[in-house]
């Protein structure tokens, strides 16, 4: 007897699960966004304070007693930043300080102590950043360093004199207020309301599948959109408050600096306080008017952008929740669950392997492919993937750049970093190696196949040695033998009266070294494979051919080659992949010298990632390599199926 339909119960569970997932995701994203707004506001206030103090220090001449008294006066009126220090790089001197530790015999001015090296380093970093940005005409390195120090923020910005960085001004904020967590009431309402409403509706609708489905979707979607709407408007209000806080701080600092400047009789005019509100690169944010009040237009824009971003994320979360609802509601999970139960044993056996593969093979692969759509590099590793997303640009850069021969002054030259050059080189490398391997392996196999040849087993064991040796050791040995001054190969060349060759100075000779190394280690494989195939040819075949009067060449063509084919074709196929991916030989023997001309695709990708630190670009490069291998694999599959048929 089939069980009575339990649509109502199933949909109720689906609604509950969908509502929980949606509400949890929503809450997560919203509190993330709100924390971000709060953090940003705190940081902006701190930066404003730092900039105000910096302007004061600059007006006080940047050094001497004037600075010290100005800083002290400023400090007494600025409780939001309980300590400030001014450091001069020339003379490695602490010029002024209000830190409680810097009192008594440690009071400023004094030379920096050994244990205060971090302060010195910080100043060097900032000076270098300003220099770099100025030279490159762009904002790449942060000129204001903001570092969390416990619950406080420690900020440092450059102190300039006549356009040159002469030191830094450093402040530490008071402990920041903990962001207050969002209330739970909305969350609980969004959780309970849809379940309750759906429960009522289900009671009315009865065991009808489609109406139940519609009701479930509407309930969850409505509650989530209500929660999302509330969150978006809450965020806007928070941004408004944050902007006002910053404006408040600007006005406060404007009064403080004005008061200090008048009391100390400092020369120069005050800068517009609104210009203190800058980003890490000291570029004005423009959210305030010059006099330091909120710029309503810009604020509305900022609120709009943030709202749009949050809405997009929330839509994604809502879609996820609805998908879960549909899956459960329509019984897909039942199906999966049933299959899991029925094949429990099989899944139990493969579970450990699959788990390992998913975590350490498939997930990294997916992550790598995702990385290939970003501009991830050494300078932005901390950022979220969506912040460095650049779509297909890496692929366009790699595949769209055909100019591997460049014309410059002094003739045309090859751009060795170009993808197509490396691809061409890799193909040449693969073809040469496989040809060498097959030819030498086949010849040696034919010779070794001679019956009654004395010492045959000894020859065989010796000739197989290169395959047995770990290939990184082989590579390093050959690298040593090709050494320009002490290498054995140059000794032999000089023995015959020729000058020593510096192997790694020209692409062609560098290529030869890698070729020799790889040829040495790859012929035994072909030899063993061919020998196995040759030994399986029955001697009668040759006997019969001879009786028929076939010449040796005819015998070779008609008997030997066809019998070799089934063994050699797969061997060639697999050795093409091996050679194509032969990282160790290229990396350890030539190292790409000279000037990356002898890189193959895999070593080039490695260097992009680990020597040029362009992770996103390297990932795209590797994905292209994967594509090439996949195409090769499917072609080879078709070919080998055709040869079998």
């Amino acid at each position: 007897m089939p069980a009575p339909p339990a649509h109502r119960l199933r949909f109720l569970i689906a609604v509950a699960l969908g509502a929980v997932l949606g509400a949890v995701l929503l809450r997560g994203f919203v509190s993330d966004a709100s924390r971000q707004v709060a953090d940003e506001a705190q940081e902006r206030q701190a930066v404003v304070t730092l900039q105000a103090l910096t302007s004061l220090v600059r007006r006080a001449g940047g050094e001497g007693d004037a600075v010290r008294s100005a800083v002290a006066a400023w400090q007494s009126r600025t409780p939001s930043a309980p300590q400030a220090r001014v450091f001069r790089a020339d003379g490695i001197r602490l010029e002024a300080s209000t830190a409680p530790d810097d009192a008594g015999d440690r009071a400023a001015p004094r030379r920096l102590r050994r244990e205060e090296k971090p302060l010195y380093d910080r100043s060097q970093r900032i000076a270098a950043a300003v220099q770099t940005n100025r030279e490159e005409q762009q904002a790449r390195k942060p000129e204001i360093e903001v570092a969390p120090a416990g619950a406080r923020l420690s900020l440092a910005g450059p102190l300039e004199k006549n356009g040159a960085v002469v030191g830094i001004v450093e402040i530490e904020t008071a402990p920041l207020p903990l962001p207050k967590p969002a209330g739970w009431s909305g969350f609980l309402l969004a959780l309970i309301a849809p379940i309750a409403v759906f429960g009522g509706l289900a009671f009315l609708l009865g065991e009808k599948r489609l109406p139940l489905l519609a009701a479930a979707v509407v309930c969850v979607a409505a509650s989530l959109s209500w929660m999302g709407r509330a969150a978006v408007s809450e965020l806007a209000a928070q941004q408004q408050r944050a902007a006002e806080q910053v404006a408040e701080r600007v006005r406060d600092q404007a009064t403080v600096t004005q008061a200090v400047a008048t009391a100390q009789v400092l020369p120069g005019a005050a800068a517009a306080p609104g210009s203190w509100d800058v980003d890490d690169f000291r570029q004005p944010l423009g959210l305030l008017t010059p006099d330091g009040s909120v710029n309503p237009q810009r604020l509305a824009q900022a609120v709009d952008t943030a709202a749009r971003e949050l809405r997009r994320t929330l839509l994604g979360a809502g879609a996820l929740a609805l998908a879960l609802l549909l899956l459960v509601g329509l019984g897909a999970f039942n199906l999966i669950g049933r299959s899991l139960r029925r094949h429990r044993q099989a899944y139990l056996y493969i579970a450990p392997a699959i788990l390992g593969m998913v975590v350490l093979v498939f997930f990294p692969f997916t992550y790598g492919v995702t990385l290939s759509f970003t501009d991830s590099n050494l300078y932005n590793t901390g950022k979220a993937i969506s912040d460095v997303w650049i779509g297909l640009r890496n692929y366009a850069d790699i595949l769209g750049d055909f100019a591997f021969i460049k014309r410059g002054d002094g003739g045309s030259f090859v751009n060795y970093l170009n993808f197509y050059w490396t691809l061409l080189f890799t193909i040449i490398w693969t073809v040469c190696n496989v040809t060498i391997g097959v030819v030498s392996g086949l010849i040696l196999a034919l010779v070794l196949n001679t019956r009654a040849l004395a010492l045959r087993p000894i020859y065989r064991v010796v000739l197989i040695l290169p395959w047995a040796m770990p290939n990184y050791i082989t590579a390093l040995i050959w690298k040593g033998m090709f050494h320009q001054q002490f290498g054995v190969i140059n000794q032999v060349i000089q023995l015959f009266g020729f000058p020593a060759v510096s192997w790694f100075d020209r692409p062609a000779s560098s290529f030869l070294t890698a070729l020799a190394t790889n040829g040495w280690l790859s012929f035994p494989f072909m030899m063993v494979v061919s020998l196995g195939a040759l030994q399986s040819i029955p001697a009668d075949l040759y006997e019969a051919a001879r009786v028929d009067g076939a010449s040796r060449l005819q015998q070779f063509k008609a008997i030997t080659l066809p019998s070799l084919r089934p063994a050699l074709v797969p061997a060639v196929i697999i050795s093409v992949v091996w050679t194509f991916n032969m990282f160790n030989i290229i990396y350890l023997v030539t190292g790409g010298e000279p000037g990356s001309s002898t890189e193959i695709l895999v070593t080039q990708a490695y260097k992009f990632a680990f020597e040029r630190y362009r992770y996103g670009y390297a990932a795209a490069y590797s994905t292209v390599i994967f594509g090439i291998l996949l195409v090769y694999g499917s072609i080879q599959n078709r070919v080998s199926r055709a040869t079998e048929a």
Partner: protein
Amino acid sequence: MPRSRISEEFPHGPLHAMLAVAVLVTIYPVLWVFSIAFSGKQSLAIADLPPTPTAGDRLRAVVPWPEKLSVSNFTSVMSDQPFARWMLNSALVAIFTTLLGVFLACTAAYAFSRFKFPGRRVGMMAFLVSQMFPGTLMLIPLYIIIVQLLGLGSSRIGLIIVYATTSIPFSVWMLKGYFDTIPKELEEAAVIEGASAGKIFWRIVLPLAKPAVAITALFSFMTAWNEFILAATFMDKENMYTAPVGLRFFVGGFSQQWGYFAAGSIIVSIPVVLLFLYLQKYLVSGLTAGGVKG
């Protein structure tokens, strides 16, 4: 007695000459390593040349025999240098990789061979395709997972986990092929006798598949013993290097300790070379069979 076709027409003399050349080319680098290792010096030249070398001097520098025999490179690489420690790291990593990898591969291969379940074909295909994932694409995410998330940088466990899982696909394909050849009737008989599924797997199937399991184990061992890139990426601390990373350390960059390198190479190579020579015929059939299927 039937006589061979080639020997009738080919004198053995030229064949021996050809083989002798091949043997010379093959064995010279090996002899070179031995003469550097036993020279007792760190130089990569076999003999020091005078400022104006004669042909005789040059010949001396080519003949692979050290000027002075000494085992000091071997003794000091094992005692003064942390090489013994690196060997220990390599051995531990390789042994546990083998144990873990073979366990994972055996159970998975058995399921793929014996059970019909949804996802079976997809799983096998996924394993196959994963063999084409370029290592450079996996390195950065693996680094993030192993070093940054799991905090297993410079630890043997991290390497073991990575090696064991990356060796799964090849091992599974190889073992599944062998399991397929074991007649099912044996297991059916055992079921009738009342044996549990676990018992059948451990007591009947695995013992029958011993040769294939042995090959898989040795394959995993050799892969872990010889691996270089991952180890070089994960193992930052010098005392956690594996032997391959350590050997590179001797002669990479600006260091030129060729004597240590040569002695270390010989110590590292001997076990794998012996294993390899013992196993080569299985390896060839396994690899080419995989090639046909792949």
